[in-house]
């Protein structure tokens, strides 16, 4: 009986893994097909699509644009999110739950709704669509993740650490910079990578708030409209490998840092 269960669970697990990964495997495979048309059978293989992606200045500059947006949005998000976390953690004051709720909200609002809301708001404020608007919307969207991750880490900092620093002559600011901040670094790095990936991946906000220059997902979307070609598979594969590598590295890094202290 136990044995039967185990076999069933194992089969179920692998079926699930296949279900999740088959589309990805197909996508990657097609990027190496020596033909303009996607689909089986594959008669010959090539790296030409990759060569064309890496020599296409439009694609490269779009990639750079997306990365720039991700980095800027992350910087803002980390600053604001950490600040909120430090303000809220371990303190009791009236309205704490309200602030908490408002902080988490942007993560829960559907992308399309927040994109439209941002679009309207940006017009009201006279902000042109473009990089600034995209960065702003991405930052707002990712602040909750930073705030929650940093708060979780902060709640595990023993109070005696800060007291010891104060005891040895540190005023509250020095204690924060020399004790609290180093303690938060693993959480901040983890949250930053996460924010960057979210921003890099975002389509809806970038689409609604973008100007003439597209971000990578928006460019892929535009290319799709003019017909599917293995070039898109190649772009997507490069993006996939990069994000997966960064994501896995960040996860392991955070885990190691958390274990050390």
């Amino acid at each position, binding site marked *: 009986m136990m044995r039967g269960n185990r076999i069933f669970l194992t089969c179920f697990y692998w079926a699930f893994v296949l279900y999740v990964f088959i589309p990805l495997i197909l996508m990657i495979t097609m990027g190496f097909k020596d033909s303009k048309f996607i689909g089986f059978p594959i008669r010959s293989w090539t790296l030409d699509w990759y060569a064309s992606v890496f020599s296409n200045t439009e694609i490269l500059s779009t990639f750079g644009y997306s990365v720039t947006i991700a980095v800027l949005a992350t910087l803002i998000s980390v600053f604001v999110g950490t600040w909120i976390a430090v303000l809220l953690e371990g303190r009791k004051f009236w309205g704490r739950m309200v602030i908490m709720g408002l902080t988490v909200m942007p993560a829960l609002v559907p992308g399309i709704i927040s994109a439209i809301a941002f679009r309207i708001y940006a017009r009201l404020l006279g902000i042109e669509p473009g990089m600034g608007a995209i960065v702003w919307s991405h930052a707002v969207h990712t602040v909750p993740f930073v705030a929650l991750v940093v708060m979780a880490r902060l709640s595990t900092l023993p109070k005696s650490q800060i007291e010891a620093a104060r005891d040895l002559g540190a005023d509250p600011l020095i204690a924060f910079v020399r004790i609290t901040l180093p303690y938060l670094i693993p959480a901040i790095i983890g949250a930053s990578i996460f924010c960057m990936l979210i921003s890099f991946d975002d389509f809806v906000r970038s689409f609604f708030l973008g100007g003439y220059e597209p971000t990578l997902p928006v460019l892929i979307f535009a290319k799709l409209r003019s017909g599917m070609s293995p070039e898109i598979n190649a772009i997507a594969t490069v993006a996939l490998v990069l994000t997966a590598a960064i994501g896995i590295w960040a996860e392991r890094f955070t885990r190691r840092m958390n274990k050390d*202290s």
Partner: protein
Amino acid sequence: MTDQTPLVRIEGVSKHFGDTVALDNLTLDIARGEFVTFLGPSGCGKSTTLRILGGFERPTSGRVILDGKDVTTQPPEKRQVNMVFQDYALFPHMTVKQNISFGLELKGMDKRGIQRRSDEIMAFLELSAFGDRYPGQLSGGQRQRVALARALAPNPALLLLDEPLGALDAKLRGQVQQELKSIQRRTNKTFFFVTHDQEEALTMSDRIVVMNQGKVEQDGTPEDLYFHPASRFVAEFIGETNLLSGEMRGHEDGAVVMDWFGQTLRGHAPAGAPRTGAPITASVRLEKLGFHAERPATANAVQGKVVGKTFLGSRMAVDLMIEDAQGATLRAFVDAETGQTVGADPVWVGWDSDSMAVLRD
């Protein structure tokens, strides 16, 4: 400033947490170079007192005077007081040396001064070999020494220690107790030590302040507290004792005379002597009861029957039933040899009036 002024003066300090009264009008002086121990059961306000001295809590009322200056509202970083935390609170991302230098840097000491002082204190506490290690790579005892080194490095006027030995196993604990005491002697610093372990308090302190429910129960030398406890609480909290319930009879030659189930006993008088006829309790330590074949010439003597013996290694605990005192019992420590010979015949036990403390109550 002469050495006569107390280093610390706690003046009528109370601390309330909501409805909880953690400290109730505490007044206490601490002299320079003293090893003072705060002893009491869990929740009696020991940590609260320490935290008020360190500047981590503000008293609800009262004042704290440090070296003649009112520091009641001063934040911790302004006080010449350092603390060894119960969990040590070493900074995990700094090496031993960086931990120790932290307080020196913040004092504005120059690089060479920091180097010299941290080397000196590490050598003093035998930590020189561990300077580049992180706290996570040290044993419990080593961490404890780092915490001590870090607190001593800035040369504080007063060192606060909140149950710093709690995390150590029994053997290491004994060693570190001796070490701490000798460090205190060698540095000639004022140590304010908190523990709920009475043995630890007795072995280490110049002076013990016994706390109970936010109030000072008794304040004195370890010998004082042990042999002349002022209250039932102290008598029972420190060591093992015989409690004798009787009735006050009066005074005679500076001793209190009491009646204990028909036996007249003489004891050490408490500060506020009770009225004649009032019920009183006296405490006499197990090792103060002497065994004799004949009636001894001590102030107190009763005859008893051995009803139980417990072998404790170097000595033996003997339980006696006193027939002349309506079958009341006494427990005594005797050396193992005497313990073996007594048993069959009734024995006489005697004790001085000074070794029996009449308790306040």
